[in-house]
């Protein structure tokens, strides 16, 4: 590759790399995009000098894989940063889910297990199994999935994921030490979900063991 066409090819390669940079989060591009494009121009020039157009092709092949993995990591990192910034909101929403599910679980135990006469029917409009509307299904689903959603919302800000490709591709997950309140709330969510599972097993025990033929 002669010097002139080599320079042109390297510049063109750097220009194309700027498009590839769109894979990265905007803040990362703002901070390092120009440097990365500049660096890639240098790498393209080196590849052309050493192995010609084949070298440039091999560089691009390696760069595609690297860009996909590192851009994914940067998005994860940005997302985690956002979640940490919105930790209070996430905790608040999680609490709403937890209280919603928890209150129904408590009222259910009071009414059906302990036989307490409630002055109102908390399940009115939610147990119309004859003609369940999407609305009823959604509210019932929210009762059951509430603890899971709450657990996820309490957990996510302390979750640290990284896509690694040292030889074999894998996602490594680690945890940031959370607050005591966060741990208590996560425990409460798991406890509530466990209670739902036990309740479900208890209610459907005969079906699950096959003792009852039609469930």
């Amino acid at each position, binding site marked *: 590759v002669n010097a002139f066409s080599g320079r042109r090819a390297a510049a063109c390669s750097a220009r194309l*790399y700027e498009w590839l940079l769109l894979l*990265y989060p905007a803040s*990362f591009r703002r*901070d*390092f995009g*120009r*440097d*990365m494009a*500049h*660096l*890639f121009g*240098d*790498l393209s020039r080196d590849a052309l000098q050493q192995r010609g157009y084949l070298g440039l092709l091999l560089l691009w092949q*390696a*760069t595609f894989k*690297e*860009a996909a*993995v*590192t*851009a994914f*990591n*940067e998005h994860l990192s940005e997302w985690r940063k956002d979640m940490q910034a919105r930790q209070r909101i996430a905790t608040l929403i999680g609490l709403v889910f937890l209280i919603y599910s928890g209150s129904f679980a408590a009222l259910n135990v009071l009414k059906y297990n302990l036989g307490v006469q409630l002055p109102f029917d908390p399940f009115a409009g939610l147990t119309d199994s004859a003609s369940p509307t999407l609305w009823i299904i959604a509210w019932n689903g929210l009762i059951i999935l509430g603890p899971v959603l709450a657990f996820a919302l309490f957990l996510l800000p302390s979750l640290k994921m990284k896509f690694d490709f*040292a030889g074999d591709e894998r996602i490594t997950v680690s945890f940031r030490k959370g607050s005591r309140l966060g741990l208590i709330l996560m425990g409460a969510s798991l406890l509530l979900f466990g209670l739902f599972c036990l309740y479900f097993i208890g209610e459907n025990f005969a079906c699950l063991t096959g003792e009852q033929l039609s469930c």
Partner: protein
Amino acid sequence: MTPMTQPESMLPLTPAVFHILLALCDQERHGYGIMQEVAHSTAGEVRLGPGTLYGSIKRMLAADLIEESAERPDPELDDQRRRYYRLTDLGQRVARAEAGRLANLVQRAQAKQLLLNVRGVT
């Protein structure tokens, strides 16, 4: 990071971060310079891509392991657009701590006679 940050609390480092710290141990370098130094010192075995390099630089800046340098080693010869990086005091201490940790590991491997057949290791 506070000035009281213990280097040990940041270990173990990822290979990319440790290679970058090693590359900056003796002099300030820009991104391309770091990449060349890493490739040269590992005989081409480790090649950092732009995404890995600048992703690590971003995290190292945030952790106060490195800082941007305003000086240019030779402004006449170099491109003014390049950003140079240098180790901070914490970065040096962390590099030392990681080197010590790895040396301990190598000692243990030697004690278990795992390195007998490796060239250059007695």
